[in-house]
């Protein structure tokens, strides 16, 4: 199945980087598959999880639709009281996407609701997890047929 995973990843990461960078310029962001030095106080991890793409053909257009969610984990060190601050950051981060639509060169992204909850961790940090559900559509380019002379 033709998919637009990398286009979507680039688009969502750029959007998040630019908007979250304005809201919290001092908080470091951990991206998928990029080496990261864990700060001692707090950081944010950005990941994307999605189902396999499905073809949703409309007429003679080949639309590929993918569903999934963006996950933003806010990690903070310290006592339970720190969760209040972490929740505030998580809500603000989720609002960058929740219920918004974005149009890129290859895909159209439609975001739906956000879920923000406290989640377990393996280490000593506390974690607040924000998920924003989405679907995005990409139009598969048609391959021109060979010209019959």
């Amino acid at each position, binding site marked *: 199945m033709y998919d637009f995973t990398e286009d979507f990843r680039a688009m969502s990461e750029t959007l998040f980087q630019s908007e979250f960078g304005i809201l919290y310029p001092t908080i470091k962001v951990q991206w998928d598959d990029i080496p990261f030095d864990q700060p001692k106080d707090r950081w944010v991890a950005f990941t994307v999880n999605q*189902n396999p793409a499905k073809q949703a053909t409309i007429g003679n257009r080949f639309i590929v639709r993918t569903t*999934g*969610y963006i996950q933003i984990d806010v990690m903070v060190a310290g006592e339970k009281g720190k969760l209040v601050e972490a929740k505030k950051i998580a809500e603000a981060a989720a609002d960058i996407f929740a219920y918004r639509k974005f149009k890129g060169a290859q895909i159209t992204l439609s975001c*739906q609701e956000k879920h923000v909850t406290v*989640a377990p961790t393996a280490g000593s940090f506390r974690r607040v997890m924000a998920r924003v*559900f989405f*679907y995005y559509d990409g139009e598969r380019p048609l391959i021109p047929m060979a010209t019959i002379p």
Partner: protein
Amino acid sequence: MGYRSNIPQVISRMQRIPAKIEKRMIQLVTRAILRVDEGVHEKTPVWSGLAIRNMIWTKSRPNSREFDEIKSGEVTDEGRRAANAAAARQTRDGILKGIKPFGVWYLSNASKHIFELEAGMLPSPERTRVPSGGMFGLTFAEVRNSIGT
């Protein structure tokens, strides 16, 4: 030529509309419940059977009671899936019997390790068989989108 009113027929047709809406709503709700159930079950790996046994459907209020797993079948090779899934699905079949069109239905899981399982941390992040994104997260994204469109 006399005048013949068709108002009785129009009224009769209009009176049938609420029943049609209710029937359609029941179809939609049933389909959503079946899709959520199927999606979550197929993504949930089985070791002891505890997680799958606790996929409990309820109406109006979520379930908070943890049920013990059924120790029938081998722990290896998903041997305990059939018995535990069948027991859990009795609750699904229970709510689908005589279902009313408007209401709130919950799929809850009160097993003690469900958060870690969903997060892909069990038995360890390297050995997890849960798809990246979790059973509930990915299923919700898929079903949410199909209902929304």
